[in-house]
Structure formats: structure tokens, C-alpha cells
């Protein structure tokens, strides 16, 4: 075990996978200079951790700014024997490659009757909460949940990031991973050995009996802080992180709600057709009889992200908002308009 940051854990998983399998390559903009800090094993370019020194330019592919071409090349490479890790830097740039992601990466295996496999990982960072304005602050993972054929991971801790990313790289299906930048500096003890975390298995961060909070990406940390505060008030909160949205561990969520009878779903994405809406619908369909209170979604509003710190902060669910929501569903506060 050693203390790793979220970003360092991603670098470690990439290094492990590069060492284990010559077919793994990294392709993307500015990966050679380790601008985003995941292609140097957590170190800077000059130090021995540098991926270009270790693996050479044959496997570390610094690209032009051509997202459509990059993703298309990765798709073709994945169909013919490589296992590319595509570094798309900001998740807002996925839109530039929408055709390749949706029409080629997601569809080819199915369309061609199983002849193709698409072992590629598409990494992108969600820069929300960092005052980068509307063009760099997207949290677009729910859009891609609407595209059959893709798998989606949204890790929220360094350990989960390392173990899930390794599984993603070794998997024969295409995976999109969305990494919240506000988590980059988060540190914890992480296993230095290789390990693989399964997709479709939620992590229960904290057990509780009164309310279930399903939290996604950076909302997990907010939910844990809220749960600690509520514990002091005598409210017992269960916090579940699905970790992968496709596949989704429905059973863990349903079991928890069957036990607590109350559900708050929290995520930083927009409200309409979000992961929170999907999870709420599943719970309403499957365990409606267990519910003692209406489900509450806490999400970003259907609004663009403004630049000013004074304006941006209010856009994402916070610890205080979660505490309020839990108080409402447990009958400790009068119902007021939420989330919008």
C-alpha cells in the first residue's frame, strides 16, 4: 500500500497495463509531455516515470488536435489487435468525436454480428467546479448511458479509479471513463499490486438504516460529509456509489432502498434524462412498495455552467443540499422545492 492521489492512481493503472500487455497504447493530445499528469506515473516528464522514456513513441502516441480522427483510429486499432487507451483530456471534447463514439465504437460489434471486439478505453476529465466556463465544465456521462454498446465508469476514489481502470483496459468492450477533476488531488492508501475491480458492482461506503443516498462521481464525497453530519443528529444514512453506470448494480440499490424506504440520488450532471432520473425510475418501478417518502433527485439544473465562482458553485449538489434533502425525506423538514 502507498498513498496515492486520484490522478496518481490512474497513472499507476495505465503503467501496470502498459507493462503487462504490449498491445496497450496511449493515444491523445499532449500525452507525451504528461500535461495532465497520468502518463508519467504521477511524475513529471523529466523524472524516470515518464511514459515516453519507458514505452517509446510507438506506444505513446501524441496526436494532433483531431478528436474524430483519434477516436476513429482507436476504434480501427481496437478491431485489429491493439488495446488503445484514448486520452481525450476534457470530457467536453467528446462531442467532437460523437460520430466515431456513437456510430463506430458503440455499434460495430453488434452491427457486424459479433465479428468485431472493441477493447478501447476513452478517458476524459470533467473539469466542473473549477471556473473554466461552459466550454470545459461538462459532465456528459448520462448522454452516453443512452448509447447501447458503451460501458461507463465514474470512479470517485483513488482505489476505485485504479482498480476499475485496470479492468476497463483489460476488457474487450469499449469503456468511457469520466474523471472528476475536483477529485484529482484526493489521496488515500492504494494497493501497489495489480488489482481489478469488477464492473456492475456498487460500493457501499457507509451502511445505514434510515435513508439511502446513491451518489455519483464527486457527489460521493459530498454525500459522505452529509452522512457524517446527519449521524450526529441521529439519522442513519447509507451511501452507495454505483461506480459503473453501465452496467449498473441495480440490485445493490434496490436492496438498500428496500431496507431504508427512502432514496436521495445525487449527481453533478444535468437533471433531465440524467443518471439520477434513471436510478429513480428503476427504484420506483421495482420497489415502490418499500418507499416511505418520495424519491429526491439532487442534480445540476438544466442550465449552462457560468464562469464566475460566485455563480458556478450553486450549480452542483453540495453537502448542505444533501443534508436538507435527507431531512425532508425523513420528515424532519417541511417539503420545499428542491434541486432546480
Amino acid at each position, binding site marked *: 500500500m502507498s498513498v496515492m492521489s486520484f490522478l496518481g492512481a490512474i497513472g499507476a493503472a495505465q503503467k501496470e497495463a502498459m507493462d503487462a500487455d504490449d498491445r496497450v497504447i496511449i493515444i491523445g493530445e499532449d500525452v507525451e509531455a504528461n500535461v495532465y499528469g497520468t502518463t508519467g506515473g504521477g511524475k513529471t516528464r523529466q523524472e524516470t516515470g515518464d511514459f515516453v522514456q519507458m514505452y517509446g513513441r510507438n506506444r505513446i502516441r501524441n496526436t494532433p488536435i483531431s478528436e474524430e480522427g483519434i477516436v*476513429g483510429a482507436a476504434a480501427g486499432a481496437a478491431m485489429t489487435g491493439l488495446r488503445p487507451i484514448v486520452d481525450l483530456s476534457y470530457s467536453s471534447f467528446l462531442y467532437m468525436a460523437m460520430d466515431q463514439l456513437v456510430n463506430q465504437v458503440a455499434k460495430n460489434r453488434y452491427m457486424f454480428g459479433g465479428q468485431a471486439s472493441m477493447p478501447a478505453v476513452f478517458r476524459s476529465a470533467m473539469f466542473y467546479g473549477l471556473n473554466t466556463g461552459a466550454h470545459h465544465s461538462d459532465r456528459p456521462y448520462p448522454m452516453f448511458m443512452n448509447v447501447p454498446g458503451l460501458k461507463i465508469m465514474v470512479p470517485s476514489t483513488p482505489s476505485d479509479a485504479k482498480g476499475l481502470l485496470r479492468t476497463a483496459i483489460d476488457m474487450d*468492450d469499449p469503456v468511457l471513463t469520466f474523471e472528476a477533476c475536483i477529485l484529482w488531488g484526493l489521496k488515500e492508501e492504494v494497493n501497489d499490486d495489480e488489482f481489478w475491480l469488477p464492473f456492475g458492482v456498487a460500493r457501499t461506503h457507509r451502511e445505514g438504516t434510515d435513508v439511502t443516498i446513491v451518489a455519483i462521481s464527486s457527489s460521493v464525497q459530498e454525500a459522505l460529509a452529509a452522512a457524517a453530519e446527519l449521524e450526529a443528529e441521529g439519522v442513519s444514512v447509507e451511501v452507495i456509489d454505483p461506480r459503473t453506470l453501465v452496467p449498473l448494480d441495480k440490485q445493490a440499490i434496490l436492496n438498500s432502498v428496500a431496507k431504508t424506504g427512502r432514496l436521495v440520488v445525487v449527481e453533478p450532471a444535468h437533471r433531465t434524462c440524467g443518471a439520477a432520473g434513471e436510478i429513480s425510475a428503476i427504484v420506483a418501478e421495482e420497489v415502490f412498495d418499500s418507499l416511505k417518502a418520495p424519491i429526491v433527485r439532487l442534480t445540476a439544473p438544466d442550465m449552462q455552467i457560468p464562469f464566475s465562482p460566485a455563480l458556478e458553485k450553486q450549480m452542483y449538489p453540495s453537502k448542505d443540499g444533501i443534508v436538507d434533502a435527507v431531512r425532508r425525506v425523513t420528515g424532519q423538514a417541511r417539503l420545499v422545492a428542491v434541486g432546480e
Partner: protein
Amino acid sequence: MVTLTDEFMLEMQRRMLRIRAFDERASKMVKRGHIPGTVHTSIGQEAQVVGATMALGDNDYMSGNHRSHGHPIGKGSPLGPLMAELQGKGTGVCKGKGGSLHLADFNVGSLGESGIVGSSIPIAMGAALSSQVLGRDTVALAFFGDGAANQGVLYESMNMSGTWKLPVIFLCENNQYALSTPAHTVTSGVIADRAAGFGIPGVRVEDGQDVLAVYAAVSEAVARARRGEGPTLIEVVTYRYNEHSEGLRLGTDYRPSDEREAWLKKDPIVLFREHLIANGHTAEAMDALEAEVLAEVDAAVEFSENSPWPDASVGFDDLYTDSEYAA
């Protein structure tokens, strides 16, 4: 000029005949409702297709577009599973899930035809990237039309593969129209000339009805790619004899009829038959070859007609490698 064996040239003619016969049959079947949806034929463009596919080796890759049957046929894919795919049968090359627009036969290096114009171009680049990273000597070829030549992804792909010297050939099938739109009205400059901007060779095959001319140009690009010298853009000028897609009747007279008449006189199959006869083959032998291919297509249709529909459950597999549904 490369010297080709008799056997090789007969195989060229055989594959052109296969495309013609397969597509003529498919056209009829669409009009009679025996093929659901529609198909886009390569009738008139057989030399352009076969000159390219036969310049590739068995292990080389290719990606293609909606004008899709010629590419796998030209690469040597058996006709029965292709026809069954057009009909949506369980024995189809893609189990009936792709249809005409999405034929793929990985056994012959066909990585798939794309219904999205231009979208499959970087797929070939990716296959070339695999070859380079893994140290294989395979090359990849992307077929696309004059219409697709105006998609930005082509230029991203030429640039990236140019800087990395990837073994890829960008083959533009310039049949002079994108659906109803004449290429010259939407295309600034000459397509082949665009290669110069990326520092890669751009070749224009003016006589795309001459299978040997196409073969020579593509062979040179393939050899260059295998030597590690990078990509080539090849524009082949040709003409489609049928409508954009079968059953389509465009109300407007977008193609002058004398233009089509002139191109019909340059039928690539007739021209190559004459070439073969001039080089010692008999007319009888050519007739026999044509009859043989027609029988092959009959057999393919029979195979398809006798094939069962796919089981309903097939609609729910092949999304992921590890389970029927991910969620």
C-alpha cells in the same frame, strides 16, 4: 506496367462479373420486395473496386461505405452469406444484424461498411496503426466516395497518418455524384490534389473503367505503404450506372442522359473482356466464365432463400463480449 499472370487477370474479370451479377440480382430483389430496405449498387464501378481490392493481400484490411457489396466481393468474400445478409437471414455474414449497409467479413479483412458517409475512413487508419505498432506488414485501405471527400475526418486522417507514416491508402471512388449532387458543384479543386497539403502522394486515375490502371495505381501505393513510406490518396474517376440506390426515382434530371450513354460505352467488364480476348483468350472462354458466375449468384440466392430467419434472441446478443446485456 506490372505483368500479371493470366490466372490473376481472369480472377479480376471473375470478381468484376461477380459484383455485376450480384448487384443486378440484388437490384431486382429490392424491387420485388425480396430484399427489405434498399441497396446501393456498384454497377459501372467494378474496375475501380476490383483494381483496388486485388492490389491488397489476403491479410490486408479495408473499410468501406454504403456502396457496399463490391468491396467484400472484390476482397474474396463468399457470396452466399453476403446475399443472406441482404435478406436479413440468420446465415448472413453479420447474422442479419447489419444488412446491405453494414456488410463486414473479418475473414477477408473487411472491417465493415459504414452507413455514415465518411465515418469509416479513420477505421482503416486505425487498422494501419495496429500494423505499425505491432510490427506487421499489413496495410489498410479506406473506400469512400466523392461526397465523403468533403468530410473533415478525411483530412484529420490524412494528416495523422501522414505524420506517422501509417500504411494506409485513402481510395476515393469519384463517381461524380453524391446522391443528386454533382461533385463539381460542391468540391473546390481536385480531390487528389488535396494530398499535397499533407505532403503525401495524391494520384488521380482518370480512367477508372480500366481495371489494370486502377490496379497499377493501388499496387504502387500498397508497396509504398509496406515499405514504411506512409499513406497515399488515390482518386479514381468512374461512374455509377444505376440510381443512387435501388428503387429510388429522383424527380429531377440531375444527370444528363448523354453523359450516362457515354459512360455506358466504357463498361469496365466489356472493356476487360475485350482486353482478355485480345490477349489470347477465346470469346467462348469468356462466355463460360460469365455463365459460371451467374450460376454462383444463383447458388448464393438459393442458399439465402433456403436459410431461416434469425432467432429472435439474436437481436439481443453481440452488444458486449461478456453478457447479453450490460445492465
